[in-house]
């Protein structure tokens, strides 16, 4: 039953992602969808639809099948369109290799070997581990199908399906409304304003699909979203502001810049130690100052969830700031002076010049920083958190990467640890894809 539903959905997804201009396309798309779903479900041994599987696992099975149907459909379409573009275009002609066909592969092989052994194989191992129950040095390995994943989610399959679909539906609907409405009408403006909030809605919907019981993943998700997004937003805004301030000609500007970039050279755990020494309530520097000079009790961040998150964000922003500053400074030097002067002559004030000329010119750099900062805030905060709060109080600063290491390494539960890293991996992939889609056409890398 589950398999049939999954394959029907997969064939539909295959058709949508492959395209449906002709009857042949529809048939091919459906076949690709079914093939994609069957491959992954067969690799899992169809366990998600076994009689003893939980219903949430069934939902996950359908979702995994649909994802692979989409990959197969869209992937084949991309390959086809690449081929037809090669043949069709008149002005660019592909040359012919004078060397034997294996030459390019031979030259690529060092890179490919590195990629295979250090990236693809470990990633594949993580995926296979995530369906198992295992530890180091065990005589047996337990098969877990997708229960390492389903236990992170709420137990109600219908809500699990409905929530993300509703969010996607609303986002899609708003987009459709925007396109269909008359430019200049209130509906057009309204949908334009609310469209960017689609991601917030989606993030919110995802929040509710995670388990909320004690030790549930919802808190981890919440921590990760709050801490990561705060780190990225604050460090980028502050980085740009400081870069703008130190870009002008002030006496001793080189010294300021060097001092501002300094924290970048400090590793995340050391940043954690430094902030611990400053803010720790039972003997930190600020506590001593507050106590001895001003006579008030310095609040203990380890007992207050908001303060604890704040301190982690502060330490990470401090660490990242120098990096962002460096890139924004480099970016500012590429902003054409003539344009700014011309705008100034035309009467644009400082803010307008900043908003309309500097910010767009910094687009590519800001986009690059957004990706690197996100990676940092997802993965490198471990060291800072471990020295500052160790996830305290009551897990309020335990972010995704911290929980992965706690479960997978400290508790030695390799399967659950791997499952959580797959979740983080998917989140980063999704976010990066979303950013690329958002920035399409908006970021100018200069005229070609």
């Amino acid at each position, binding site marked *: 039953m589950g398999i049939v539903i999954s394959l029907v959905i997969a064939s539909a997804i295959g058709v949508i992602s492959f395209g449906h201009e002709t009857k042949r396309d529809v048939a091919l798309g459906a076949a690709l969808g079914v093939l994609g779903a069957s491959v992954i479900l067969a690799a899992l041994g169809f366990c998600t639809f076994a009689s003893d599987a939980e219903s949430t696992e069934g939902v996950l099975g359908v979702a995994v099948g649909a994802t692979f149907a989409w990959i197969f459909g869209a992937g084949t379409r991309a390959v086809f369109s690449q081929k037809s573009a090669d043949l069709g275009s008149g002005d660019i002609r592909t040359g012919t290799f004078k060397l034997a066909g294996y030459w390019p592969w031979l030259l690529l092989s060092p890179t490919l070997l590195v990629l295979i052994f250090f990236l693809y194989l470990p990633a594949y191992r993580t995926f296979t581990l995530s369906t198992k*129950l*295992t*530890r*180091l*040095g*065990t*005589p*047996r*390995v*337990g098969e877990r199908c997708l229960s390492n994943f389903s236990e992170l989610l709420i137990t109600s399959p219908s809500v699990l399906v409905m929530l993300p679909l509703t969010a996607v539906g609303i986002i899609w609907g708003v987009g459709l409304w925007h396109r269909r409405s008359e430019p200049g009408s209130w509906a057009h403006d309204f949908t334009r304003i609310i469209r960017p909030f689609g991601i917030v809605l989606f993030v919110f919907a995802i929040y509710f699909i995670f388990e909320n*019981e*004690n*030790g549930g993943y919802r808190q981890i998700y919440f921590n990760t979203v709050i801490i990561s997004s705060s780190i990225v937003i604050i460090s980028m805004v502050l980085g740009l502001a400081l870069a703008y301030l130190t870009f002008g000609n002030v006496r001793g500007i080189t010294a300021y810049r060097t001092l501002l970039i300094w924290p970048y050279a400090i590793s995340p755990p050391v940043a954690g*130690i430094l902030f611990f*020494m400053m803010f*720790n309530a*039972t*003997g*930190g*520097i600020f*506590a*001593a100052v507050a106590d*001895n000079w001003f006579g008030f009790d310095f609040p*203990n*961040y*380890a*007992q207050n969830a908001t303060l*604890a998150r704040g301190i982690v964000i502060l330490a990470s922003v401090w660490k990242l700031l120098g990096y962002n500053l460096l890139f924004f400074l480099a970016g500012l030097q590429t902003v054409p002076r003539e344009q700014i002067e011309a705008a100034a002559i035309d009467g644009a004030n400082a803010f307008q010049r900043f908003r309309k000329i500097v910010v767009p010119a910094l687009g590519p750099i800001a986009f690059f920083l957004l990706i690197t900062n996100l990676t940092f805030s997802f993965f490198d905060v471990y060291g800072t958190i471990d020295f500052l*709060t*160790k*996830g*305290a*109080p*009551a*897990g309020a600063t335990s972010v995704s990467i911290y929980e992965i290491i*706690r479960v997978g*390494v*400290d*508790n*030695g*539960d390799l399967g659950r640890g791997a499952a959580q890293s797959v979740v983080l991996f998917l989140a980063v992939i999704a976010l990066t894809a979303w950013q690329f889609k958002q920035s399409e056409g908006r970021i100018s890398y200069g005229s070609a």
Partner: protein
Amino acid sequence: MKKLLAILLSFTVLAAACSSDSDDSSDATAAPDDTSDAGDASPIEIEMWIAFNDDARLNYTKERAAEFNEKHPDYEVVVTPFDSYNTVFEQTTLAIDDGNPPEVIHFFEAATQDALDAIDANGDPIFKSVTAAAAGRSEILGEPVVLDDVVSAATNYYTIDGSLFSMPWNTSSTTMFSNMDILAAAGIDEPPTTWAGVEEACDAIAALPDAPDNCISWPNHGWFFEQALGQAGVDLANNDNGRSARATEVALNSDAAIDYVQWWSDLEDSGDYVYTGTQRDWAGSSAAFNSQNVAMLVFSSSDTTVITDDGAENGFDVRTSFMPYNQERDYVGNLIGGATLWMTNGLDEASEDGALAFMNFFSNPENAALWHKTTGYIPITNEATALLETEGWFAESPNSAVASEQLNAAANTPASTGALLGNFVAIRDVVTAAIEDILVNDVDVTERMNSAQDEAQSLLDDYNELFG
């Protein structure tokens, strides 16, 4: 200012500990000079991986290794520090699969079952029983075997199938440290021994005009919870705490357990107990005591010497006493904590004898006594205790005798021996997380312990599915 100094100091130690990894190579190159007259054969290397990377305990170990190397030119014991027991274990498991394992590793009590169950890629156990390897010899390479002389509390805990499987090293219990200056000011002559006594003392201390911030503290660590169960004589796991057969059921929500957590939570609600906010925060709790922010500290006896000396340095008198127990239940006994030295399986005879000789040398009466004096871990053999008594050590530093006395006072039951339990480390973390939730978020004790129970049981079930 003192607090600031203490914290700066602890980071210097930390920094020194971190840099100590790089010291190894220089030590290794310096040591072999002594062996030049031993003939042309290079010495057999005995690698010892330990989980102490602080200067004091690491240097102590390296000094003993150097002494052993000097005495036995055919052998060279090389000590490598790691940052935690888990890291040692993980690295050992991986090294075994690589075919180049260390000979001796340092592993802690809670993971005894995990260490016994672990196997290598060929399906052989990773560790070998030291008693079996000693095979009844009274001395190995001239080093007297001290296995039979290990004090009973440690022997009981680490005995598997009738004999010691690993060689006990650092062994401690939970004791209470009192700032006698504050207690005396509040009109209390003796440290309290029961929960009610603690509450009474705290009321008196809170009434002082210059009362400390809080009355009492101890780290949030599953070990204290286990101690409370031992005191009440209640098993943590079925099958006699996993001693008569593999434990298949864990009990975090027994009445005794709930009572203890409830008392802890009430003490926190009344402001008498202060939680540092971090799990397993040994440093934070002892810092609160050293800086006189609390009058009493329940802690591991492992730091008896340091805490007593720090108190003297900061100008107050420290007295050690038994961990307070619930006056409404009959006292059964406190249990040990700490770690043992494990010998890896499949060594050749010469390496095995070298490893065994070193382990017995390491805990011979003189060394065991020195280790006790340096740290506060109990003297691990009866002969070491006797030696210390002859020296008059206990009369001179009465605090150091308390942990051994507390362990000797315990009845020999499974509950006071301690549980042998698979996945115990993760189960401890479940306990710690639940207690933190109760302390910080004020959730209902019984409900929270029930959900912790479910979580712990599923961890044990998972473990037994793999190993049982």
